[in-house]
């Protein structure tokens, strides 16, 4: 769970589709990815415990992946 430092919750960063204060945004993962890829210190300093870029990209993709249920084995039908 990404968290913005308290002192930056009212800060406005224009990115994506909105310029809402950071404390009200639900797309912080996109800003976190931008921060990690750019290494922009003015963005990096806004996050508490920023995960690695790999972890962030995994977090972003996971909710989009379909949930796969194991196929029933032939024996299960008996």
């Amino acid at each position, binding site marked *: 769970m990404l968290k913005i430092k308290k002192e930056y919750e009212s800060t406005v*960063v*224009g990115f*994506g*589709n909105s310029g809402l204060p950071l404390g009200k945004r639900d797309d912080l993962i996109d800003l976190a990815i931008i921060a990690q890829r*750019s290494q*922009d210190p*003015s963005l990096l300093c806004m996050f508490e415990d920023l995960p690695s870029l790999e972890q962030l990209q995994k977090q972003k993709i996971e909710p989009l992946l379909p949930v796969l249920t194991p196929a029933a084995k032939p024996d299960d039908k008996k």
Partner: protein
Amino acid sequence: MLCVTLTGYTRPCGGTTGGISDILIFDPSDFNFTQTTAKDPYSAVALRTGATAEGGGKFFPINFQDKEAEWTWKQSKGTACAVKYEHEVKLMLVENSNTLTNFLQSLDAAGCCCGIGMIIRLNTGKTFVAGEKYVNAASIPKFTIAQDGSDGTSGKNFDDGNVGNIVLKGDYSRNLREFTGAWSALEALM
């Protein structure tokens, strides 16, 4: 690639559109743009430490006459592979007035001191940045935009234009970078 890394230029098949939809100006010292790699567009923008909206750190819209704004650029190659891009934005502002005089004076002051930052949204929806000063929290080589060559007229007859034709110019080493956020991402900083 034994000598130079070239790239091709392709775009999705389809038409495009000319013209400028919106122009914003800003103090380049107030804003930091974030770029993920040196060739990527800008993907985020925020006020720098010390700049505040209350103190004038904003994007200011310019209400130009509809279909009367244009950005042009011209590349030239000088001595020893030196490359220059001459950028020019022309826009028509309606009515000579004290308000226009004050606006022109503010442009002159900015051009003399720290330059004028510009956000240009084309009718295609693509948004470009000119005159920026800070990227990834560090200053970039100077890109100074200033008012140079504006003129105006009262017109002669009742139905003549009473306008100022504003010209903003600046030379740089490259064409303009795009900003990929939506317009709403910039509106919060106006």
